[in-house]
């Protein structure tokens, strides 16, 4: 198993009545809720936590890209990744990822990811999300019906920039470049392992399977709700005739570990509820601009959320609902171990993106939960897939001789 310690970097000071007074945590979030001086403290706390995970033996530090979003303070994850590359030298740096359709030209991603791969000594996991409608369409103005096509073109350009030895001309529909010539070149050949984070668009599956990319379902809905979707992915893998390595799949899960189940609720419930009830308060109109999802995905999807009467039902979730519904795996090490084992087997997962920092959880609690997991849960789950233990296709291959800057500091 590969364990990624993931930090969304939420703003921890959304007011209690956020849901009533504000229409969305994302896109048109009130900028007066942000305090840059406090932001200074928050960024360092969150980056310290990622580095702490590295010392505890997590396989990767995970970060991602969101825009105009109060639960995701990383418009540019590459800036955070650069900091991590200088202060750690062991675990992978999972940038999940850069929304490649947003970069003009996307060669910028080929260059920055190459820089990160080189600085980190080959520890980069390169994520290429299509991007949420909130980020891609409403914040960054991309035309919904053309987003996917633009994404595929950006992917082709980046891959060619990494693979080809000679400068080449690229005559795309969205990008015309006379001289494509990526400098520096990534350490990992032919390219850093690619992760495709998905929110549920089913055409992404074929793309992952055809290219042997990891598909990671990043929902906050938890492992129970994800079953149908992940089954669909594995059916696509089976139909393709490719092997069923669990490392083809990743999943994001909120995890809270304490000495006992009751202690987990006492320590973490408020912070988890902050996340689900305040941070996930997104104006529904931003979630599905016409043209973003294909007809195929709409036909496969569930539309309940768009009914007027259900807008009123979408209210406060309780701790019990979150735990029973599998949104959150919380409890003693034994409880967490048992539920995670079930999750890993049931969804057939080789890679986990685990959210220990969640909502407004303070640093000491984040570290407590992380440490208990690293010591009492992770070792027991480590060898879940013995028959695939030599499958290194979906992970980074760092240089043995890489510079270890944090060790050489005098």
């Amino acid at each position, binding site marked *: 198993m590969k364990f990624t310690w993931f930090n969304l970097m939420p703003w921890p000071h959304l007011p209690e009545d956020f849901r009533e007074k504000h229409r969305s945590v994302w896109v048109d979030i009130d900028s007066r809720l942000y305090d840059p001086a406090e932001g200074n403290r928050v960024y360092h706390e969150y980056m310290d936590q990622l580095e702490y995970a590295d010392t505890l033996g997590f396989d990767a530090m995970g970060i991602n890209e969101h825009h105009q979003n109060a639960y995701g303070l990383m418009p540019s994850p590459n800036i955070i990744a650069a900091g991590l590359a200088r202060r750690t030298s062991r675990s992978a740096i999972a940038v999940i990822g850069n929304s490649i359709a947003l970069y003009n030209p996307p060669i910028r991603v080929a260059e920055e990811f190459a820089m990160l791969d080189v600085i980190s000594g080959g520890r980069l996991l390169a994520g290429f999300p299509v991007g949420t409608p909130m980020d891609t*369409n*409403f914040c960054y*103005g991309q*035309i*919904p*019906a*053309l987003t996917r096509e633009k994404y595929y073109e950006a992917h082709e350009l980046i891959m060619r920039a990494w693979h080809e030895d000679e400068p080449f001309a690229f005559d795309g*529909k969205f990008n015309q470049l006379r001289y494509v010539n990526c400098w520096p070149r990534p350490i990992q050949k032919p390219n850093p392992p690619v992760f495709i984070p998905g929110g549920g668009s089913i055409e992404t599956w074929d793309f992952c399977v055809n290219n042997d990319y990891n598909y990671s379902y990043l929902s906050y809905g938890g492992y129970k709700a994800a079953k149908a979707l992940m089954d669909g992915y594995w059916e696509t893998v089976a139909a393709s005739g490719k092997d069923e390595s669990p490392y083809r799949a990743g999943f994001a899960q909120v995890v809270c570990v304490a000495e006992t189940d009751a202690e987990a609720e006492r320590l973490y419930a408020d912070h988890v509820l902050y996340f689900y009830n305040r941070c996930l308060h997104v*104006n*529904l*109109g*931003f979630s599905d*601009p*016409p*043209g*973003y*999802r294909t*007809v195929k995905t*709409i*036909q496969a999807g569930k*539309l*309940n959320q*768009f*009914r*007027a*009467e259900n807008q009123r039902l979408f209210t406060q979730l309780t701790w019990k609902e979150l735990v029973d519904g599998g949104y959150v795996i919380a409890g003693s090490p034994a409880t967490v171990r048992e539920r995670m084992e079930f999750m890993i087997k049931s969804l057939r997962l080789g890679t986990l993106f685990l959210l220990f920092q969640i909502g407004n959880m303070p640093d000491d609690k984040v570290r407590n939960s992380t440490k208990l997991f690293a010591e009492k849960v992770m070792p027991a789950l480590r060898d879940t897939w013995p028959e695939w233990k030599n499958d290194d296709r979906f992970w980074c291959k760092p240089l043995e001789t890489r510079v270890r800057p944090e060790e050489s500091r005098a």
Partner: protein
Amino acid sequence: MNERKIETKRGIKCRVLEAGQGAPVVFFHGAGGLLAQEPVLEALSRRFRVYAPEWPGYGADAGEEKLDDMLDFALHGFDVIEALGLDARPSLIGHSMGGMIAAEMACIANQAVEKLVLIGSAGLWIDAHPVPDIFSMLPFELAQVLFADPKAGEKLLTGGIDFSNMDALQTFMVANARRLGTAGKILFPIPNRRLSKRLYRLRAPTLLVWGREDKLIPLVYAERFRQLIPHAKLAVIDAAGHMVPYEQPEKTTAEIERFLAPA
């Protein structure tokens, strides 16, 4: 009205409503598509030969994937006119997005259009009066900005479908995704593809028809069109919003008739 299928030289098939005899008039619908009833077109067909082609993405046939930008849409408009085989230079009527495209056509080929009618036309942007973002509205919210009387308007818009019926909702969502997905290519995120730069070329006599209570593209946009097209006339219609042809069909028809065929 009668219905027929045409195919353009580019290979895009589309449905066209047609009726009447007289000088040719081509109507380009807005982002919502042709509605079940088109009373203005029916009424105009008493004096004109009226054609109402459906944009790609709005009917049963595919083809919207061939249109990416404003030039594609405008040239498709001419391809349709060519495929219709008209015997005279047509007048163009465009509503909302259809107006934006018709105006582009009349600027690009400024001797190819007899007269131009722009009804609540999109295509301009005024910072002080931002057009509401229809792409972030849920289907049941649209009527609020489209009609002077949203309650009455809602039925027109959805054909009266019951949003609590999941199958009906899914059918609507698929159709809506195709329609507005296509419209988004020229309207998202800001419905401005620099038409204002080209309006100086416009030669066709032009009539602007606006609902006084238009909440989507308010009357101030009609004034801006009039500044940019000095020879344009403006007819403002009371008790009507953005969907003026459907809310006040008789008054709309009367203004258009008077302009196209003065007595």
